[in-house]
C-alpha cells in the first residue's frame, strides 16, 4: 500500500512539474469545448435557400414568407428562371432550392394535391437531413394554418401528407450541437488522458531505464500497475469535472441526471482505456510507437462510436464491430445521463457491455504486463 502511495506521489510530481503537461490538461478542454461546441454544426442555422415561385399567388408568397422569417433559413434569392436553380446549387451559393410550381394555389383550392419541389444539395448528408426536417416542419405548419383558415382544404392537404412525421427533439429542442458534442468531448478527453498518458508514461520509464530500476525493487507488478493508473484515472475525472464546469459557465448547460452515476459509468469506461494504455506499453518500445498505436485505437474508437457517423448508416459487418467499442456505449450513457437524467435501470445493457469489455481488456493488459516484465 505504502509503495503505491509513493508511486502515485511521484507520478503527480512529474506531471505537475511539466508546464506543458499542465497547460495541455487544462487548456485543451477549454479550447475543445469552445471550438467544437460552436463549430461542429449539427445544429443547422442559416441554411441558404433559393426560391422559384412560378405561381405568384398569396398562398405561394405566404409559403416563401415562412422561409424568409425562419432563423434556420436564409433566402438568398427568389429566382424567376427555373433553370438557374441548378446552377446556383452547383455553385454552392445555396444548398436548398424550393420550387413552387404554377397552379399551386389553384390545385390547393381545387383539392387537387398541391405540390412543391425541393432540391437538396446532399453533399453534407447530416446537415441536409436536418435541414430537410426543418423544411417539412415549415411545410406542415403551413398546411395546418391553411386548413385552419379554410377547412375545405383539409382533404386535399391531408392527401399530401398521409403519414404525418412530426419530429420533436425533446431533449435537444433545436438540435443544438453543443449539447450533442459535450459527451463526445468528455469521451475524447478521457481517452486521451487515460490511453495516451498511461502508455506513454510507462514506455518513457522503459526508455530511460527507471522501469528496470523499479522491477529490481521488491515492488509487485500489481502495485506498479495500480500506482500508474490511479494518477491518470484521477486526472481523467478532473478533466471531466473541468469540462462539466466549462460547459456550464460557457453555455449554461448543466447535468440533468445523477453525478455519482455519471462518474461510476466513467470509471467503468476508464478501466478499458487504462487497460489499453497498459497493453500498448507492453507492445511499444518507444513513446513514439506508443503514440502511434494509441492514435490508431482512438481514431477507430471515435469513428466507430456513432459520434461522427450514425451506427445505423454503417454496413452490417462494421456495425458488428461497434459492439466491441466501449466508446459507443459510453457516449449513449453520457448523453442519457447528461441530457435526460436517465437512471441506471434504463442503462443496464450499456453498463453491462462496458463492464464485460473493461474486464476483458484489463485482465489481458495485466497478464501481459506481468509476463513481459517478469
Amino acid at each position, binding site marked *: 500500500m*505504502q*509503495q503505491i*502511495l*509513493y*508511486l502515485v*506521489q*511521484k507520478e503527480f*510530481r*512529474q506531471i505537475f*512539474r*511539466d508546464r506543458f503537461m499542465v497547460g495541455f490538461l487544462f487548456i485543451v478542454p477549454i479550447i475543445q469545448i469552445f471550438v467544437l461546441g460552436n463549430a461542429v454544426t449539427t445544429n443547422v442555422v442559416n441554411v441558404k435557400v433559393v426560391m422559384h415561385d412560378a405561381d405568384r399567388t398569396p398562398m405561394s408568397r405566404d409559403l416563401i414568407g415562412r422561409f424568409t422569417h425562419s432563423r434556420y433559413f436564409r433566402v438568398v434569392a427568389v429566382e424567376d428562371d427555373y433553370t438557374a436553380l441548378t446552377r446556383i446549387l452547383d455553385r454552392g451559393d445555396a444548398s436548398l432550392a424550393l420550387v413552387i410550381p404554377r397552379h399551386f394555389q389553384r390545385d390547393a383550392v381545387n383539392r387537387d394535391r398541391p405540390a412543391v419541389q425541393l432540391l437538396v444539395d446532399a453533399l453534407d448528408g447530416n446537415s441536409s437531413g436536418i435541414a430537410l426536417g426543418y423544411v417539412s416542419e415549415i411545410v406542415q405548419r403551413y398546411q395546418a394554418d391553411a386548413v385552419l383558415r379554410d377547412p375545405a382544404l383539409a382533404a386535399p392537404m391531408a392527401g399530401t401528407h398521409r403519414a404525418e412525421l412530426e419530429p420533436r427533439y425533446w431533449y435537444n429542442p433545436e438540435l443544438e450541437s453543443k449539447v450533442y458534442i459535450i459527451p463526445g468531448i468528455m469521451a475524447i478527453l478521457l481517452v486521451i488522458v487515460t490511453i495516451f498518458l498511461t502508455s506513454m508514461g510507462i514506455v518513457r520509464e522503459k526508455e*530511460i*531505464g*527507471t522501469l*528496470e*530500476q*523499479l*522491477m*529490481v*525493487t*521488491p*515492488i*509487485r507488478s500489481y502495485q506498479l500497475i495500480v500506482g500508474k493508473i490511479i494518477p491518470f484515472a484521477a486526472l481523467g475525472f478532473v478533466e471531466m469535472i473541468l469540462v462539466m464546469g466549462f460547459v456550464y459557465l460557457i453555455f449554461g448547460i448543466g447535468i440533468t441526471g445523477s453525478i455519482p452515476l455519471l462518474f461510476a459509468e466513467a470509471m467503468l469506461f476508464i478501466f478499458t482505456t487504462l487497460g489499453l494504455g497498459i497493453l500498448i506499453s507492453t507492445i511499444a518500445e518507444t513513446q513514439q510507437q506508443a503514440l502511434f498505436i494509441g492514435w490508431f485505437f482512438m481514431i477507430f474508437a471515435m469513428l466507430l462510436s456513432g459520434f461522427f457517423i450514425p451506427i445505423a448508416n454503417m454496413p452490417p459487418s462494421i456495425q458488428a464491430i461497434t459492439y466491441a467499442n466501449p466508446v459507443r456505449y459510453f457516449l449513449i450513457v453520457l448523453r442519457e445521463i447528461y441530457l435526460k437524467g436517465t437512471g441506471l435501470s434504463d442503462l443496464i445493457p450499456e453498463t453491462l457491455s462496458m463492464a464485460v469489455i473493461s474486464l476483458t481488456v484489463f485482465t489481458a493488459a495485466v497478464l501481459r504486463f506481468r509476463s513481459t516484465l*517478469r
Partner: protein
Amino acid sequence: MTPEFAVSARELRRNFGAFTAVDGISFDVRHGEIFGFLGANGAGKTTAIRMLCGLLPPTSGSATVAGYDIGRQVHQVKGAIGYMSQRFSLYDDISVGENIEFYGGVYGLSRAAIAAKSKSLLADLGLSDQRHLLTKSLPLGWKQRLALGTALLHEPSIIFLDEPTGGVDPISRRRFWRIIYELAEKGTTVFVTTHYMDEAEYCNRISIMHQGAIVALGSPTALKQEYGLGTVQDVFVHLITGTTDR
C-alpha cells in the same frame, strides 16, 4: 543461516534466439568482497547481472543470490540486493530529495527512516543544499553517486553495479571507488562490471568475460602472476587476442 556465498552461479546460460549472450558461466562470490566482471562491450556482463538480479530469466542453469534462488525466490532476491543499471536510472524531472524519498518509499522504508537516510545521504554526497534542484541539473558524476546512494537506501547485503562509472571523469571515478571501498569495509558485497582495466585492479577478484564465457577468474595479482604479465590490461589483451600488447 547465512549462505556460504553471497552469489553462486552454476552453468548460467541465456540465449536470445539463436544467439548465446551468456554461455553457461559458473562462479562464487564471497561475502564482503569486491567482485569484478571485466569484459569488452557485448561480452555478456549486463545479461549476466540482469539474470542475477531477477530481471531476466535464465535459459538454463541456476544461481543463488544472498541464499535465494533467482528462479523461485525472485521476490526475496530483490529485497536483498541493490542494483544500479548501466543507464542512469533516477527520475530527471523530480528533485534530488524527491528521488531519494521515492526509492526509499518503494523499498518500504518508514517515513522516519527515509528522512534520516535522506539527510545522511545528502550530507555524504555534499548535496544538502541542492536537494531541491531537479535531478537533471546535476553533473553526471554526482548523478551516479546519487543513484548509488538510492540503490543502497534499504541497506542491501549485495550491491550490483553495472558499469557504474561509464562516461564520467577520472576524479569522479576515484570518488566513486572510494565509496565502493567503504561499502566493502562495512561488509557489503560489491558485484561490479567494468571495461576499465584500472578499475579491475581495485577489485578483490575479477572474472574476465569474453563472448559470454568466463575465460579467467582470480585476484588481479594471481592472474598477473599466472600469465607472467604486469597489468590486468595485459592479461586481458593476452586472453582475448592471444597476443600481448606492449
